[in-house]
């Protein structure tokens, strides 16, 4: 009887895991299926007039943003890791802040800047004539959009390089210093080459986020692939949207494959783990330079936008539509809360239950689910959207209402995109728990699930919490999927900020913008302390 029930629960979990893997693959399947359908003249028109521009703009955007993020992230990580100066500890913490500033919130703070630059444009026209005037106005939105994305995304590079500089390559760096290498030499000839995998990993994350961005690029009128997919989708050109999404998928895969390839080609020793890098004390002049190096990106990526948002919040005090904001905030919280439960539950099935049963099926499902993070947001959005439309078409009447008024599509999309975010910390945590503990529990008469519940999960509580926080923040500030898949007449803080900014009601976007940022910050805070603790 007991064996039977165990077998039964094993099958249930395998089924669940297979279902999750299927859910992750469905959007891609739908997109491939629809993209292969014949299209009328619409696709030909897109190929003739728009495709080349989309591709070119995507490549340029990714190159510029990644370049900026690297140029900011690597030197700041180096300065913070290798030197000691007044304010270093504070800056080390502050440099994470831009992570709490979603690009489209920062964009709301900067979007009126272009209007404010009119005197400069007019001056250019007077000095260099009409052509220069026209050209400058094409360049400035690019500068703004790439600058904002670069300044808010650089912490990804900072974080990954920081860990390498501080620990993994500490021995080599110390040796180079002892052998009399100059400061620049240590950086360029030792630290930088050793940090290459970390740099590429951080850079590819930035590239991915940039490709998935919809808010910033569309607010500044850039036209890379992601807004292109949504434009076609909005115009009802489903096949065109699907094909453009596949283009996006292609470029994203190139980034991911390149990252894998460079990592696998050469072995990078973890170092002997001989401890932390001793920080060199800087003189007052150099200290100031180091502080400036870290403060400037912080200024543009965090404090300036926060300052402007605060001022607008003050301006609209009293007249703000608090009811609407509160409703949107509640929607955001409920969505993120629900998504976290769903994601964590799924991650537990895929990781902890897998360990308990040692099931290969679940392990394969887990690997498939990790792929979801590599799917472009736009592809997930239109794939799930098409699925919902298909289901609605087959269950007309009440079924349609149930689908279009519920968050079904949205939750499915979050599951696809963010399951990896929940799985990875949990998997890392579980690996540290010795299997013998669970075996001991089982020897003492506990069932597989009982052992998991009472031994494994309590031991990975912290990483579970870290995963939950990451998922919460990710869903909470998600814009791209939410814009397309949200139920009818349903606003989250993110979509509300985007709508207000898009309509030019920037002051009104400030209140939800600040709310979103503060809540992300609250989520980020325990995470950074947690990370510090894990580091120690």
């Amino acid at each position, binding site marked *: 009887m007991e064996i039977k029930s165990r077998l039964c629960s094993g099958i249930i979990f395998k089924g669940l895991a297979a279902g999750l893997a299927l859910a992750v693959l469905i959007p891609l399947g739908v997109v491939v299926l629809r993209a292969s359908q014949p299209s009328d003249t619409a696709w030909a028109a897109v190929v003739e007039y728009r495709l080349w521009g989309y591709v070119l703009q995507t490549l340029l955007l990714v190159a510029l943003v990644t370049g900026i993020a690297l140029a900011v992230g690597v030197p700041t990580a180096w300065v913070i890791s290798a030197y000691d100066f007044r304010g270093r500890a504070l800056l080390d913490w502050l440099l994470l802040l831009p992570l709490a500033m979603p690009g489209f919130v920062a964009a709301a703070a900067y979007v009126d800047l272009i209007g404010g630059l009119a005197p400069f444009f*007019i001056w250019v*026209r007077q000095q260099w004539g*009409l052509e220069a005037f026209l050209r400058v*106005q094409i360049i400035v939105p690019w500068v703004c959009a790439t600058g904002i994305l670069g300044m808010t995304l650089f912490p990804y590079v900072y974080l990954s390089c920081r860990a390498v500089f501080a620990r993994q390559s500490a021995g080599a760096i110390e040796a180079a210093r002892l052998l009399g290498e100059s400061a620049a030499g240590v950086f360029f000839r030792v630290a930088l080459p050793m940090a290459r995998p970390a740099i590429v990993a951080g850079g590819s994350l930035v590239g991915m986020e940039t490709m998935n961005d919809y808010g910033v690029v569309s607010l500044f009128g850039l*036209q890379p692939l992601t807004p292109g997919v949504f434009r076609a989708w909005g115009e009802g050109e489903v096949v065109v949207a699907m094909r453009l999404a596949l283009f996006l998928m292609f470029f994203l895969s190139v980034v991911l494959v390149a990252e894998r390839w460079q990592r696998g080609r050469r072995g990078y020793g973890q170092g002997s783990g001989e401890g932390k890098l001793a920080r060199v004390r800087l003189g007052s002049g150099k200290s100031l330079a180091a502080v400036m190096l870290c403060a400037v990106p912080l200024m543009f990526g965090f404090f300036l936008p926060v300052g402007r948002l605060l001022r607008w919040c003050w301006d609209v005090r009293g007249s703000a539509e608090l009811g609407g904001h509160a409703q949107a905030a509640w929607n955001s919280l409920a969505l993120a809360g629900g998504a976290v439960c769903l994601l964590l539950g799924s991650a537990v099935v895929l990781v902890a239950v897998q360990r308990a049963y040692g099931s290969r099926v679940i392990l394969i499902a887990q690997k498939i689910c990790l792929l979801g993070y590599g799917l472009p947001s736009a592809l997930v959005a239109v794939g799930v959207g098409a699925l919902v439309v298909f289901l609605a078409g087959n269950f007309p*009447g009440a079924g349609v209402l149930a689908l*279009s008024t519920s968050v079904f599509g949205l939750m499915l999309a979050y599951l696809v995109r963010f399951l990896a975010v929940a799985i990875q910390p949990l998997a890392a945590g579980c690996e540290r728990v010795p299997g013998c503990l669970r075996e001991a529990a089982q020897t003492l008469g506990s069932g597989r699930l009982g052992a998991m519940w009472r031994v494994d999960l309590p031991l990975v509580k912290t990483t579970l919490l870290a995963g939950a926080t990451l998922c919460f923040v990710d869903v909470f500030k998600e814009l791209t999927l939410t814009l397309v898949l949200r139920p*009818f007449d349903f606003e989250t803080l993110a979509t509300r900020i985007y709508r207000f900014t898009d309509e030019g009601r920037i002051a009104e976007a400030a209140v939800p913008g600040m709310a979103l940022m503060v809540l992300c910050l609250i989520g980020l805070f325990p995470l950074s302390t947690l990370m510090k603790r894990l580091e120690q």
Partner: protein
Amino acid sequence: MRIIRNKCFGVLCLVGALQWAAFGAELHVYSHRHYGTDVKVNALFSEKTGITVKVVNAEVDQLVERLRSEGESSPADVLIAVDAGRMQRAAAEGLLRKVETETLKQRTPEALRSPEGYWYPFTLRARVIVVAKDRVKPGEITSYEDLAKPEWRGRLLSRSSTSSYNQALLASIVAANGEQAASKWAEGVVKNFARPPQGGDRDQIKAIASGLADVAITNSYYLGLLLNSKDADERAAGESVRIIFPNADGRGSHTNVSCAGIVKHSKNIAEATQYLEFLLSDEVQKLYANETFEHPVLLNLALGEQLEEWGEFKVDEETFSQLGEFSPAAIRIFDKVGWK
């Protein structure tokens, strides 16, 4: 067990009946409009009739898509759009229901409503040209066609072609001059842009005030909103431009409408008809004329001071009925000439 079940059923029925009684007088409006004035108008309607108005706001394309998929189970009674072309298409798809009353007929111009009575306009939205008072002389621009002339190179502003306002404008030009001429016109306009299209209509007016360009295409009420803004800078921006109602000597200015129709599967037809008539009452027309600065549907300018100041204008009735038909052509042209 059975008794309990029966009791539960009874309670459920009672709750259902109570809900029906409490929410019986309810009107569901799917609307593209989301100004504060619209909220006010609905509150006024509820006050007068005791009918609660429940509004669902979204882009009209989404609303139509939703009506399509909901079919008979749709809770919607009234559909409100801000583009006649889209309403024409919704009617052609069979999503709307015919309604004809004396009030609706008398209070709307024949040329600007659905000939079969599927929908009625309730505000007019003229797409006008504004020019910098100090840099463009009166009479230099009188028509949309003038905007494509080479002397305006680097001096013209417009929002993006994804806006339904621009799509309807170009559709009207296709209807008036043919697709080829319209394409040439759009090409000329794009060449004259002082910057790639960005922002909304208000942003174009503000950009003229800042000296960036001299001419812009905008809906008239955006200028009204700026001129009557609480913000001094916005008022100054509005003051710096002159409004031109184009093609006064020809077909008239391209004018779109806010329009309302009753949804095919509405269950509250009497209330919905009452709502449509209410939108055309003097009281509501005056509210719109003074708060959103849209033109009353019969152009009785006396209703609003700002409108009186702008004066009479000729509505392009010639191309109006073809806006929906030529909108795909307009989108094609925008793509071809690279109007972002």
